[in-house]
């Protein structure tokens, strides 16, 4: 497999080469020569031709090594590891075409499903929990796909750094850091979204850099190619996880500053600038949005069977899914008096308005019948809608059909128990300052506290109330409060169903908005629900709302250990992928500490060196030509990478959702690339400051070799973390890993 891939890459590299030699003008507009060639005295490299050949050989080597490390022992362990239980399961859902819900966009899981499908996996494995044996199921296709994308990260990083710095040692160091990082290796070997996400992020970065290097030949074929490839990769990154947004911000920033320069170039006419702008809008906004939307179109087309995700979506949405009881159903369209209905709360995972023959316990409000919300379909969810002032049976054939309209005063009678939906000035069981809601009255005869005004929030369907589509509020006539569910779980006496209250706060929240789902009325003609099915844009919007709410619902608990963003760059603590005890096959996701701490040090050094150079330039200091070239690489190339690191790291400090160590890995890629550029620049600067040229060359070579070999050696030490270990735990002095537990918090 590796040679084929190497060939594929070489092809793309060929295409890029056409605009390669001019790159230097972008890196430093006022320079003509390749900064790397200029800045270091290195006659040994010989002619350009030879150099190019060397570059190819190195790229092939780097790719080969990357694939070798990622595919080595890929089948181990032959059981479900960590989040494979989620993403493997979701891949199976695609193969089985079962609808499910996840907080991430669908592309990543779709690709996993596709890989599984193509490799002959039949979707029958249950992925129930980590540790389940795969046995005869074919899991290698999915793992192989992830490992394939994970392996490409290394050549991508290599090419990006080479493009930014034009320095082979810098590119090589970056490649070594990533190849030999146990964390990247581990994360690439399993059925996870991360390798796919990182693949798209790095591909987007690489194509941006490539396209920047074509800037002097705008509208040429390679220019268009890289620009649209950037857009495609952005769509991919966002389509896998929402954190793909950060690379979009980075590319966006890059594009804006690019346009700003073009705009300030008075030699370009406004028409040309307009063409530039239009090209970018087309490739970086329209194209990605189309592709992103297309992934959802595929997602909803493939998943057409009812499954575990139904309940998260609205009633109208569910009617799309075969197997759901709303699918192909036909019910009356508009609500009329006498209709039997179920009422569903609009907020996700609240359920249907429900009552049952149990009273509120002593001391909790009035001792009347409980009203709750319940997630499952049940006879006790049925209510009859009646006029408030008459108890006559509206279904009596002698009465004419009368539709319920916005603003009507109604009574809701519980079908099974014939009690009315009722509220009064007693405090709700769980939520303070809200009123209790009960079932009251005998055979439909109660008091004026049973009267509710029905209001339609989205009145575009007129004053009638449409099943599934109309969003309604029920306002209690006497107290003026609004019927809602707090979403809190009642204690045992309430069968752990959810609390229903009447809230005096009239703010419109989804908790107090309902829609009618089932509707039975023999006097009305049935219509097919297909008419009510939401259109694709509505489905798209709804699934995004549900995903965003799902994401923000992932809140950490106070008393749990949670990973904090400041833990990550210092490699404070890893994640257990597999196994706990000393007899288990253990895999532990932890960055190679040598690599990670070097990265951390490099960021600090970069900030120091970068600001020193920037201040010197701002003070108008005259830098020697060599230093000038190097500082350009450092400030521009390094600056882009630093921005990438910051964008992929700092937003996590603001996130309220639960965080994990592996969220840092995209930032870590950028940090490693920065390390490559920084150390190469440092060594060159140091070598330049030495008087003797042979000493300088020696120093440069030794320095680079030292870094490369050091990284490789640390990988040799830490490789059991990724490839798996059995035997005593590291805190046991007997363990071969005991000497490697450099931090107390590491737990392997």
């Amino acid at each position, binding site marked *: 497999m590796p040679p084929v891939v190497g060939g594929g890459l070489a092809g793309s590299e060929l295409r890029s080469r056409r605009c390669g030699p001019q790159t230097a003008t972008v890196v430093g507009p006022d320079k003509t020569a390749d900064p790397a060639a200029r800045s270091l005295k290195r006659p040994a490299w010989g002619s350009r031709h030879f150099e190019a050949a060397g570059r190819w050989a190195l790229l092939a080597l780097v790719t080969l090594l990357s694939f070798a490390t990622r595919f080595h022992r890929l089948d181990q362990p032959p059981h479900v590891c960590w989040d494979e239980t989620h993403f493997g399961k979701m891949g199976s859902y695609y193969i089985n075409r079962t609808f499910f819900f996840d907080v991430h966009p669908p592309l990543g899981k779709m690709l996993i499903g596709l890989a599984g499908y193509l490799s002959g996996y039949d979707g029958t494995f249950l992925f129930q929990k980590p540790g389940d044996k795969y046995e005869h199921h074919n899991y290698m296709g999915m793992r192989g796909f992830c490992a394939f994308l994970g392996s490409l990260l290394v050549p991508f990083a290599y090419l990006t750094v080479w493009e930014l710095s034009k320095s082979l040692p810098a590119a090589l160091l970056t490649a070594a850091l990533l190849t030999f990082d146990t964390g990247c290796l581990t994360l690439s070997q399993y059925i996870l979204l991360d390798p796919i996400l990182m693949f798209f992020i790095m591909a987007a970065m690489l194509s941006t850099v490539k396209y920047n290097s074509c800037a002097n030949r705008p509208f040429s074929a390679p220019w268009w190619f890289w620009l649209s490839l950037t857009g495609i990769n952005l769509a991919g990154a966002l389509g896998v996880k929402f954190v793909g947004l950060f690379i979009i911000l980075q590319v966006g920033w890059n594009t804006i500053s690019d346009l700003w320069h073009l*705009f300030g170039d008075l030699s370009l006419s406004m028409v040309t600038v307009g063409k530039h702008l239009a090209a970018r809008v087309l490739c970086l906004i329209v194209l990605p949005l189309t592709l992103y939307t297309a992934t959802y179109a595929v997602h909803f087309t493939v998943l057409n069977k009812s499954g575990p995700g139904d309940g998260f979506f609205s009633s109208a949405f569910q009617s799309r899914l075969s197997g759901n009881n709303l699918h192909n159903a036909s019910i009356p369209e508009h609500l009329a008096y006498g209709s039997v209905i179920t009422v569903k709360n609009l907020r996700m995972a609240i359920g249907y308005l429900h009552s049952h023959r149990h009273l509120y316990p002593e001391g909790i409000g009035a001792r009347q019948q409980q009203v709750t919300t319940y997630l499952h379909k049940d006879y006790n969810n049925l209510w009859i809608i009646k006029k408030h002032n008459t108890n006559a049976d509206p279904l009596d054939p002698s009465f004419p059909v009368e539709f319920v309209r916005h603003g009507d005063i109604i009574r809701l009678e519980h079908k099974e128990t014939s009690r009315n939906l009722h509220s009064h000035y007693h405090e709700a069981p769980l939520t303070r300052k809200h009123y209790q809601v009960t079932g009251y009255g005998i055979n439909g005869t109660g008091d004026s506290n049973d009267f509710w005004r029905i209001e339609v929030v989205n009145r575009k369907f007129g004053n009638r109330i449409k099943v599934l589509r109309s969003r309604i509020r029920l306002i209690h006539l006497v107290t003026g409060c609004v019927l809602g569910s707090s979403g809190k779980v009642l204690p*045992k006496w309430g069968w752990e169903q959810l609390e229903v209250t009447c809230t005096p706060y009239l703010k419109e929240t989804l908790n107090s908005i309902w829609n009618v789902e089932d509707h039975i009325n023999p006097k009305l003609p049935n219509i097919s629900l297909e008419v009510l099915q939401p259109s694709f844009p509505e489905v798209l919007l709804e699934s995004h709302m549900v995903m965003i709410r799902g994401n923000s619902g992932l809140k950490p*608990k106070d*008393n*749990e*250990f949670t990973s904090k963003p400041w833990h990550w760059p210092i490699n404070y603590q890893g994640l257990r992928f597999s196994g706990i005890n000393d007899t288990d096959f253990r895999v532990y996701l932890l960055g190679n500490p040598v690599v990670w701490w070097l990265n951390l040090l490099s960021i600090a050094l970069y900030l120091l060196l970068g600001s020193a150079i920037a201040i010197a330039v701002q*003070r108008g200091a005259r830098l020697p030509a060599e230093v000038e070239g190097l500082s350009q690489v450092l400030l521009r190339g390094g600056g882009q990478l630093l921005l990438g690191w910051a964008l992929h790291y700092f937003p996590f400090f603001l996130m*309220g959702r639960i965080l994990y160590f592996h969220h840092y890995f995209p930032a870590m890629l950028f940090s490693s690339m920065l390390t490559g550029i920084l150390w190469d620049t440092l060594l060159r600067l140091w070598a330049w400051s030495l008087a003797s040229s042979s000493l300088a060359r020696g120093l440069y070579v030794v320095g680079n070799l030292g870094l490369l070999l050091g990284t490789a050696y640390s990988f040799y030490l830490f490789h059991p973390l990724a490839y798996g270990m059995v035997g005593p735990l590291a805190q046991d002095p007997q363990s071969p890993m005991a000497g490697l537990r450099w931090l*107390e*918090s590491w737990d392997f």
Partner: protein
Amino acid sequence: MLGFLKHPVVVTANINLNVVALTAVGLLSRLWQLSYPGAVVFDEVYYGQYISFYMKRIFFLDGSGPPFGHMLLALGGYLGGFDGNFLWNRIGAENALITQSRLMLLESVLIFFNLLAVLSYLKFSNSQKQRPFSPSWWFWLMLTGVACSCAVGVKYVGVFTYLLVLAVAGVHAWHLIGDRTLSNVCVLGHLLARAAALLVTPAATYVLFFYVHLSLAYRSGPHDQIMSSAFQASLEGGLARITQGQPLEVAYGSQVTLKNVFGKPVPCWLHSHQSTYPVVYESGRGSSHQQQVTCYPFKDVNNWWIVKDPGRHQLVVNNPPKPVRHGDVVQLVHGMTTRFLNTHDVAAPLSPHSQEVSCYVDYNISMPAQNLWRLEIVNRDSDTEVWKTILSEVRLVHVNTSTVLKLSGAHLPDWGFRQLEVVGEKMARAYHESTVWNVEEHRYGKSQEQKEREVELHSPAQMDVSRNLSFVARFLELQWRMLTAKSDGSEHKYSSSPLDWVTLDTSIAYWLHPRTSAQIHLLGNVVIWASAGLATVLYVLLFVWYLLRRRRKICDLPEDSWLRWVLAGALCAGGWAVNYLPFFLMEKTLFLYHYLPALAFQILLLPVVLEHISDHLCRTQLLRSLFSALLVAWYSCACHVFNALRPLTYGDRSLSPSELKALRWKDSWDILIRKQ
């Protein structure tokens, strides 16, 4: 309102007679009938309470911000002869800025310091051009720093203005570095002066506030519980009264109470009692049926534990006492039931991934006692450190299973008397404060017999060392607690979302006269509000337009007026943005008054834009006079609205229901109308 309105004009035109007149009008509109109403209005309940605490020297903690604002109010009260004995617990139950600044709330103080910071920075940058390092240069520079720290000291949102000033100063400093006419030494001097005034001074002032706060409030009060034992012990009264005179070093035979350091959801002590875990839980899982161990939020005789040497039988302290050190293995004996703290491979009642912790009862089944715990002192200086009362934060690691004693935070059901669950956490490596405990009450046990011991446990612990926490430790702890204190995101009748603020879709009823319908509302002057919003939009559009044209080398404005335009925008529009946009990310309950600091900046922008339009965009005399006429119309309109809303601002006049209904210009305004 006018006082704010014309500020930038004042700044650029320096002194003119207007300042005096405007200040007078401003003061008048704010002090008008200030003593009315004579009842407590809205949040004055809280802030008033805090002031009383200062007067009585009682320690308190407010999650919303540092103590400087409270102290200022207290100072005002002190000067006014307020003695702190009034009980602030009953609510007598442009206009917005006036309403807010007339009442005893923090926003007006914050706005004052925000504007002072920006004003003095402008003054400073003016004198930068003329005479750097002159006394007035130093004065304005230092004043900027001090005003910034005061703003932060009043409310944490003041930090946004501080950052804005820092950013502008940073940009100016960067230009200064690029100024090649200055010598290196001179540039260095400039940078150091700015660092001293804008970084060091604010930090020092900020710490000073806390110093004063802590030295004023040295008595224990209602918020003690949130703080650590060590902090509480440093306050007068409260815990200190109990812990004073306790022996410092925990020895074998010591009787102790163990408090959880994390203390969330509530501060509590390790506890046990006669009841056992139910044989089968509601979920169908089984338990060990041994004696419950919980965490209990109240002082109780059942919170006492005896530290026992596993190699010895006695439960008393030897003479001399043998201290317990880091790494020692101990047993913990529950004082009242003499059972041993134990954990084993049984799932905990509510956290099935952790182990159950119990007091061991020998049922003679094959379940041996596992009651050895290794003591780890987290904040140790050396590996042989002695376990100290209050000061040492310890983890108890179970010897057999390597789990660590932890407060899970879950409330047990009725069988556990709703106390908090304590478990053995298997992820023993990971550090979390909920696994850390400290000794709070402590005495050397003397009684050999159980009966005597029970009497001893019931008697208060009294014995002879006083410990004082250093200021730095107290400052850091208080700071940490304030920043991590979570306000409960409960809804409030008058809470609103940031989007409502711009369109003034919300109001807050502050006060209603007990009998008549005179009332005070926080409501903006609609005209000013709308025109300020419009000015912001206009500014941004114009700015982008000019910027793009300048990039194409078309300069519509002369260089210096462009620079002034940019600076005014950076400070005013920027001030609005930094004081407004962050609220979208905040998850706490928000009110209209949170918008007022941003509004103050936005209103400052209004005259800047107006002046710009009349100076640069009205090319002909006709246009200019037309614009002036419009201005007068606009101004009288604003005055008219002010006048119409005046009764709701001052609450001095009772309006009839129909008048009130007429004033309810938006449905979302909660104007209170009494039912007849």
